[in-house]
């Protein structure tokens, strides 16, 4: 296996992401206190006892932001795992087998693709009832078309490679060919697209919660917090600055990391026109 060597910017992205994960893990043990507890007066600026201020119910913002990061990251990554698993399955099958199966899968993908993401998400949320499950399902449905397409394209390329043909000639059956040869070799595509899907997921979760269809308070997610903070922007800007910054940071670092990952898996030359 080649060593995964990344450029400094991507490493910074990764570090940033790890920091956020650490923050999220902290919320599991209530490192900064119970996110739901009313600890002080309402709408206080940052100060001792509430390092990021208090919200409109007198709760400390810091543990809420931590919980929010946790919820959002957990939801998005769980969704991306589901997307990755489904895309891998469908994409590989469609790409390797082709034919009617390919047609069917790709048509379903096209149908999903034709929905504007947030409209799709709202519909899902309305059906599943707002909440984490809806947010998760929405992220999956929103991210699955692109990933399936790309996995399929990668699988088509892999299917034509000699080691696959050699395995078929050796008498290997479909599960073995797909599992040992095709899947591991589209894993790079899945990893790269997975990071992008993660950032899309975070964004979708935010948008959905923003519209009130996603994670429901009192549980905090970045979208929920930004939604709440948004209304208090004038009187209590600290309510939105924390979650807003974290959201942008999360998406940015994931994208930057994804770019680095892609440069790694699909290195490309650059040429001068001079």
């Amino acid at each position, binding site marked *: 296996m080649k060593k995964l060597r990344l450029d400094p910017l991507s490493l910074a992205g990764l570090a940033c992401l790890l920091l956020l994960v650490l923050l999220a893990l902290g919320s599991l043990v209530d490192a900064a206190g119970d996110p739901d507890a009313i600890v002080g007066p309402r709408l206080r600026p940052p100060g001792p006892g509430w390092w990021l201020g208090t919200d409109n119910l007198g709760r400390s913002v810091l543990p809420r932001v931590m919980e929010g990061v946790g919820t959002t990251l957990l939801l998005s990554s769980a969704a991306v795992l589901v997307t990755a698993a489904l895309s891998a399955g469908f994409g590989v099958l469609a790409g390797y087998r082709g034919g009617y199966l390919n047609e069917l899968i790709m048509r379903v993908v096209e149908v999903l693709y034709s929905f504007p993401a947030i409209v799709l998400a709202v519909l899902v949320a309305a059906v599943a009832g707002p909440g984490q499950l809806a947010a998760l399902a929405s992220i999956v449905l929103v991210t699955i078309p692109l990933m399936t397409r790309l996995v399929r394209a990668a699988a088509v390329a892999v299917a034509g490679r000699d080691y696959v043909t050699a395995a078929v000639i050796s008498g290997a059956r479909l599960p073995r060919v797909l599992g040992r040869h095709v899947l591991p070799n589209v894993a790079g595509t899945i990893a790269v697209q997975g990071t992008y899907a993660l950032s899309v997921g975070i964004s979708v979760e935010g948008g959905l919660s923003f519209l009130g269809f996603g994670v429901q*308070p009192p549980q905090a997610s970045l979208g929920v917090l930004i939604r709440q903070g948004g209304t208090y*922007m004038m009187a209590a800007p600290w309510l939105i600055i924390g979650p807003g910054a974290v959201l942008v940071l999360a998406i940015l670092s994931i994208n930057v990391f994804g770019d680095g990952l892609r440069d790694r898996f699909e290195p490309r030359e650059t040429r001068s026109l001079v």
Partner: protein
Amino acid sequence: MRNRLACGVAAVLTATVTSACGGGTAAAPGTPGGADATGPPGYLALADGKLPAGGALTFAVHIDSGAATGLDPQLADVATSWQLMSLVYETLVTVGPDFAPKPALAESWETPDPKTYVFHLRKGVAFSNGREMTADDVVGSLKRLLAAKSVWRGQLGPVEKVAKVDAGTVKVTLARPYTPFLAALANVPAAVLPMKEIAAGSLDPAKEMLGTGPFKVQDHRQDVSWSFVRNEHYWDKGKPAADSLSVTIAPEEAARVAAVQNGSAALASLGNVDSAAMLAGAADVKVATQATTDFYYLMLNSRNPKFADPRVRQAVNMALDRKQIAEVALGGQGRPTGVTPAGLPGACDPAALPSATGGGAAKAKELLAQAGAAGLSFTLTIYATEPAPAVAQVIQQNLQQAGVTVRIEQMDEASWAGKVYGKAPAPFDSALSWFAGYADPGMVTTWWNPDVAGFNQGFMRADKDLNALIARAGETPAGPERDKALAEVCAKVDTDSQMVPLVTRPATIAYRADAVSPSLYATEGYGNLLRLVADARVKRG
């Protein structure tokens, strides 16, 4: 009536107002300085009658009237609908700032006995198409309302007969005395409709509005905007003060705040209890918090095994800290209430209720242990519109003190309504909503009788004693005896704890003092922020 969550909530937010100093009985003319967040007694603000009439008013509210019943006022059950319709339609009587009945289309009335009301119609009242209003319109409208499948029909009381005495007089006979009758008559569903046009089929009241009110509709785009222009045939000469009124529908709070700040709306209804603080720095913007008789209540589903034992419900009730709910969730702008809405004359004292004097969280724990429900945990189902989630979260914190775990389940209004009202027995543990409190302390108690209310049969068991108490309070004439009867209702409701009244719900209004001089009641009973809009003066230049 109003509790319709989704829309209801909205309803509250609407707003505006005005009163001119004119209206006969209304306030003293010429409060200097015009609109101000502190008006004369009973008023938050009073329009400056010295300002010239004319001009265009622009308001922003958060939700449109929108119902399957369309624009028919008799079927309207949402405050948002009421306030828009009140611009076009008028009732025989209306309410003053002190909740006393005030003449409107009826110039005066007599009550020869507690079961008989004789109304003397105002002369020179015409519909906006120019046709004069007749006693037949009044009689026809009331009969139509009584025959309609309207919610308001129940609030109107035991009306036995409506008859035209002569061209200017209408008599209503009740089967039993019913104290809230005039208050019920003062709301939009009891409006006088142009019955001649309706009978002739030239008007479908579900699709078009044609009334005697200060404005008529020029244009309506569902969920986008309304535009009204003055009704040239309006009986109260000099009103409305403004030539036109356009109402923009802006569901997003930030959009309404922005509209007031940049002046694209002269007045907006706000949902956030902290609006005043947030708009503090904005020049020329005033924020007024209007008290209402509406109140939040907690439904404890007694058809759910968790809450079948009254002791469990009482314990929950006892553990609630209404003061904290009012302080924290409502920014100190609501107040604790019993089932008779705090703020209405004759309402009971919430501090005297058993739950308030019972011993708080410690006693609640004890009670739960007795009931074998120690470590109770249940789900509280709410809808997303603020500040309901805030109220729910304070409840959660309150109950934690009593060792009760509350899981908050928040959903969009449609799903919430489906879960709470869609099935009997209802599939929820507990839920949060609010009722409009109306203008008489006895009216809203009606909903504690599931046989009358209907909508709560899925989660509330009827209590014969309570029903009798409610009926008695309805029949007893206003006075100390009725207050006592109402206090008994309060206590019984509190002990029963199936639908637990919590705190009243404030309404927040922001307006540009440099663009409009509005009139606003200090307390509103029907969630109608547009009630005094005909008085509002436009400031120009």
